[in-house]
């Protein structure tokens, strides 16, 4: 299998304290392989080691142990950076430059021709949803969301094969998020590998092909998102929605069904049962109490359930 990102036994210790004698392990023996042409979600709670991993891959931090390769080349290879893009979390740029100037500057660092820089700048600033009137404004006058858009645009100036996005939706409004989601999907369609860390799980569910979840610097789970959700739980429960039911009487009957929970509302009730066979037991109770069946829906394990379980596994076991 062709892996564009290969991470082997990667660890990072931060030295803290006045004499730098105390070590804090931010990343612990991380092994991870990312296939090409997909959107890979890198998840984890605050301080799990996501940004540390990305910074090591970008050669901003040196690993304490282990090694990593991008596109088959060691991360210390400066020329490898010609084929990748990176949008840092809360991107910082020279704020006295305009959006157009910063794009031109980064394009020059990649050795792009003047014409290419101009074309890419206009294409990308448009595609990240930055209106043309803002292109020649200094970045110091930009909002957080606008800076985020410039950050995404500059990460793509060189048409990278792999792009690393650290919290790409941070600071964006709902319309901005949708535009960036479409942009990311468009990158996958062109064959670009997208490696993104994010806290927004709905974006991961709608965008990512594979995910990895970090917990306290260690890899807690990784794999295809659909497989992960089904193999670690599949259908969690069944939701039965009924109308015109008598709450008191139905509640009494449901005590016979183990694990059944009920939420009543003026027009009816929502009953949740844990097993499929419980549905057949609940139907007669509904009819008996004058209710009418509206719907039965299997409730699947969500990414949020998986994320919460994986990131809190240590607390539970402790």
């Amino acid at each position, binding site marked *: 299998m062709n892996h564009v990102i290969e991470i082997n036994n990667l660890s990072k210790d931060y030295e803290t304290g006045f004499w730098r004698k105390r070590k804090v392990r931010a990343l612990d023996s991380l092994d991870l392989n990312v296939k090409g042409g997909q959107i890979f979600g890198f998840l984890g709670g605050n301080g799990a080691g996501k940004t540390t991993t990305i910074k090591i891959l970008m050669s901003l*931090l040196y690993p304490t142990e282990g090694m990593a390769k991008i596109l088959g080349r060691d991360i210390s290879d*400066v*020329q490898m950076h010609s084929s990748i*893009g*990176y949008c840092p979390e809360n991107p910082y*740029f020279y704020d006295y430059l305009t959006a157009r100037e910063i794009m031109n500057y980064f394009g020059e660092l990649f050795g792009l021709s003047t014409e290419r820089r101009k074309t890419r700048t206009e294409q990308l600033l448009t595609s990240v949803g930055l209106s043309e009137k803002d292109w020649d404004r200094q970045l110091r006058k930009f909002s957080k969301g606008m800076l985020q858009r410039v950050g995404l645009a500059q990460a793509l100036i060189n048409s990278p094969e792999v792009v690393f996005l650290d919290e790409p939706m941070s600071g964006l409004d709902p319309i901005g998020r949708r535009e960036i989601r479409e942009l990311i999907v468009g990158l996958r369609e062109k064959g670009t590998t997208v490696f993104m860390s994010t806290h927004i799980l709905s974006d991961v569910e709608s965008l990512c092909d594979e995910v990895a979840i970090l917990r306290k610097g260690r890899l807690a789970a990784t794999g295809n998102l659909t497989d992960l959700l089904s193999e670690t739980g599949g259908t969690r429960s069944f939701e039965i929605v009924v109308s015109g039911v008598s709450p008191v009487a139905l509640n009494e009957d449901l005590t016979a069904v183990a694990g059944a929970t009920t939420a009543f509302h003026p027009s009816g009730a929502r009953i949740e049962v844990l097993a499929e066979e419980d549905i057949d037991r609940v139907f007669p109770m509904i009819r008996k109490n004058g209710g009418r069946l509206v719907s039965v829906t299997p409730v699947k394990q969500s990414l949020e359930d998986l994320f919460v379980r994986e990131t809190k596994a240590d607390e539970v076991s402790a």
Partner: protein
Amino acid sequence: MLLVIGCAVLLGDLTDGQEARTIVNISLNAMLLFGVFIAIFVGVGLVSKEIEKRTVFAIFAKPVSRPQFIIGKYLGLCLTLLINIVVMGLGVVAALAYVGDRELVFSIWGAIYLIFLELAIVTSVAIVFSSFSSAALSALLTFLVFLIGHLSTSLRDLGQALGSEVARIVFEIIYYVLPNLQLFSFRSEAANGLVPNAEMMLGATAYALVYVVIMLAIAAFVFQRRNFK
């Protein structure tokens, strides 16, 4: 600088027959001081501010090595200093033309070149400090190096005069480690119409070149090992 030149012209009026000499003396010293001010305060911020403001994050994700970054920053500031010093030099030339002195118009450029070499060394020292410490501390340390650099020969003589072997070794180390900036001092001589000879110019150029290369190598080495959290 224009103000300094204007003052120099006015002071020159007060020194009977010495207008041109006064103009050159004051202007070249002001040129060095302004240049050092720029070299220190811009130089120390060149690297440390990039780290503090996290602008390096996006840069090092591009195909730019850390030594390239240091050298690029250094050359950029040197070019700024060169343009600054040439413009100042032209201002002095204009002032000399105003007082009607033609001899000094040509002889000052040797001293100006030596001032530039001195500024190039001070900038390289600022970049070394900037690669591992804060802007404020870097500015202080660079200024101290500038001061000691102008006194290093005297300090070496002092070390020998003290009669203590330890003092001699300490001052000898300071003499060789810190730049000897007196090698680039030709301002008073230039005001008297003298021109640095080829030997002095070549020696100063070689010294500056070697010193700058060593400083940049140290800065690149230190910077290469840094983690950007």
